[in-house]
């Protein structure tokens, strides 16, 4: 037993020794390790979650564009301001809050707050909400008069609302956001009671004030059409791709190996039947059938894994079968049979270990195929809609305006991520082949 283990260990060691000498193999390995780290430590690489939206304006450019592209020199970053105190009681003096804004004009902004009025004696009272620019111009965004108690009201002001444009005296083509935030400096957001408010015992209450000015530059890679962070999607997409690639490759190679060994070793009718089935499977166009089956069975990640594996085992089966056919004629198999080894015993202890090197390489080479297949499915809109994948990023980029806005920074990263990961696995697979199966060296 000890002796046996020692032999295996030296086998692994000598494999590693030979592997270390192959630069491409090492590059591949390092890339894969980096991806694995990104997948594991995703939450530490980004402060957001891939589902968080409205982090910035739609299709915002990467933040570093500011330092590279003159057009973005002073582009706004997202500014979100909430009042420090949770609740304000306004008697007669206005409440104001200073907003520092040092960028060029944004495209939109929104303001939300809750307000209610306590008016014990029925008396006319009102207030307005306004923004004062550094130059001292005032824009009244909202106002209301009360003559009695009111329930809590949630006020939402959006710069794209027609009502607001009318209130500010703008035409529908003018933009309140760029008009109001046209200069840099200290703005103030003011809630001001109307004159005469203090004469009554009316009280106005304001809470949950939040001013949101979505930025036009954001994060490492900008945002998508929902204002969701692209870097976050890319980082979390690594997880999905690795999981799908690895599990589909393992499943299909396991199935392929089992079928290949059984066919090759047993031969006869079973072999004939299964090999014809392999031919049939190989003749089916994979992507159309995956699209159809995916739509029918439901678009979950595990369905995709199973479907991708279901149409990827055939080549392994063929390879293993031919290898088994030649192994079957070898003396040591004869010896095992003669000493009474059962078929299952021979297949699992004598044939399986001997086909493993071949299988191992083809498994590594199947990973990029599985990753690409999943990416294609997601790109076409047939992936799991609940998770951020690279294919889905590209789907969104195509469907939601990356082209018309020329947002190449939305289109390029997911593809590069797929490419480098696939290349890494190809390098590793080829290196393993070079070591174990020199005959297959030149093949991709």
């Amino acid at each position, binding site marked *: 037993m000890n002796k046996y283990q020692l032999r295996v260990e030296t086998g692994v060691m000598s494999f590693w020794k030979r592997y270390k000498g192959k630069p491409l193999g090492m590059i591949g390995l390092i890339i894969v390790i980096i991806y694995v780290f990104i997948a594991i430590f995703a939450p530490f690489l980004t402060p957001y979650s891939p589902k968080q939206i409205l982090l910035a304006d739609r299709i915002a450019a990467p933040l570093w564009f500011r330092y590279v592209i003159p057009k973005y020199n002073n582009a706004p970053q997202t500014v979100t301001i909430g009042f420090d105190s949770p609740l304000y009681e306004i008697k007669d003096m206005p409440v104001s809050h200073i907003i520092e804004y040092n960028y060029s004009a944004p495209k939109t902004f929104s303001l939300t707050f809750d307000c209610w009025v306590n008016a014990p004696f029925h008396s006319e009272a009102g207030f307005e909400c306004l923004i004062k620019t550094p130059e001292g111009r005032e824009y009244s965004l909202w106002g209301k008069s009360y003559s009695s108690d009111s329930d809590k009201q949630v006020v939402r002001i959006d710069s794209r609302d027609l009502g607001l444009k009318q209130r500010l005296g703008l035409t529908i083509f003018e933009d309140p956001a760029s008009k109001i935030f046209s200069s840099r400096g200290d703005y103030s957001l003011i809630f001001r009671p109307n004159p005469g408010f203090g004469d009554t015992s009316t009280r106005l209450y304001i809470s949950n004030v939040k001013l949101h000015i979505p930025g036009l530059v954001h994060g490492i890679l900008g945002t998508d059409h929902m204002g969701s962070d692209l870097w976050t999607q890319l980082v979390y997409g690594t997880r999905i791709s690795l999981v799908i690639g690895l599990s589909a490759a393992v499943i299909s190679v396991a199935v392929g190996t089992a079928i290949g060994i059984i066919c090759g070793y047993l031969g006869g009718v079973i072999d004939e039947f299964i090999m*014809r089935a392999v*031919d*049939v499977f*190989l*003749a*089916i*166009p*994979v*992507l*159309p*059938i995956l*699209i*159809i*089956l995916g*739509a*029918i*069975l*439901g678009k979950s990640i595990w369905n995709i894994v199973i479907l991708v594996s279901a149409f990827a085992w055939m080549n392994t089966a063929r390879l293993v079968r031919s290898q088994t056919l030649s192994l079957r004629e070898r003396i040591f198999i004869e010896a095992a049979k003669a000493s009474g080894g059962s078929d299952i015993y021979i297949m699992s202890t004598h044939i399986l270990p001997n086909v493993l090197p071949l299988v191992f390489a083809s498994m590594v080479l199947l990973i*990029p195929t599985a990753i*690409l297949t999943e*990416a*294609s499915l997601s*790109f*076409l*809109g*047939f992936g799991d809609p609940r998770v951020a994948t690279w294919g889905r990023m*590209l789907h969104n*980029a*195509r469907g939601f305006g*990356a*082209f*018309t806005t*020329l947002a*190449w920074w939305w*289109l*390029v990263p*997911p*593809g590069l991520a*797929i*490419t480098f990961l*696939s*290349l890494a696995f*190809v390098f590793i697979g080829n290196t393993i082949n070079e070591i174990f199966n020199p005959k297959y060296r*030149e*093949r*991709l």
Partner: protein
Amino acid sequence: MVYSRYLLKRLIYALMVLFIIITFNFIIFRLIPGDATKMIIDPKFTSEAKAELKREFGLHEPTHVQYIKYVGNMIKFDLGISFSTGRFVINELKERLPNTMVLFLTSFVLTVVIGISIGVYTASKQGTFSDGFVTGAGLFTYAVPAFWIQLLLLMLFGYYIPILPVHGTISAPQPYGLFLQILDRVHHLILPAGSNVIVGFGSWALYTRNTMLEALDQDYIVTAKAKGLKENIILRHHALRSVLPPIITLVFGALPGVVSGAVITETIFSWHGVGKYLTDAIMMQDYPAAQGAFYLIALAVVVCNFAADIIYGFVDPRIRIGEGGKE
């Protein structure tokens, strides 16, 4: 004699595959969660009206009767009526098939011809540059998502430098005159077909080059060289001849994959073809349409595979003459 027996065998095999695909089609579209009739039958209908509609679509009969009728319909190309347009699926497919054929044939032929030519050329001119180029192109085909390259090319030539149309098969309105119309179609074809070639030629080049290099190592090539034959003649008449059969098998073996790629290409460039019809149909849960499109695609692959068998048997003398052929 041997060749015809071989052909018969392959024909029976092709028919078997077709039959399996029809059966498969029959089964999967009955796996749809819930009742397939839900799609077309409004739940508010009375039960008589529902039964009436079911009779119209033949859904009241026992499954095996439905199956036999289904196989018959498929053979007659009676693919049913589209849920979303109410037209015969076969008519809609007929409109789209020529577009798909044009795109498919142009890109596939160009890809294979360019790929094999580069492979043969670089095999004759060995050196670090040609080695690197072909290996790089092969890796490119294998590892880079084709649809991503197509998207990048679309953005570059459709939006940054808008010299090529970004979607569709023809301009609307079409230009006047046959010549301009053909030109217009070619203009629309450049991006989809060209991007397919860029994405696909690498693996052909690499495979051809590798098999050529193996062939050039053989003794009979050395003999030919010793006889003083010209490099060019050795390359074309001796080496290429011997590597052609495996390459031809590969060409036709690649068809299912190319068809898959065509579905994506058509979707990206909004090409008015069968592949886009399939994805659109599934998006709209138009099952008769999806079924019809898939049947047509699968049929095309089966036919191509059979054609491959015919040609393979013809090119490989072991099968044609029957000496130690595998069949």
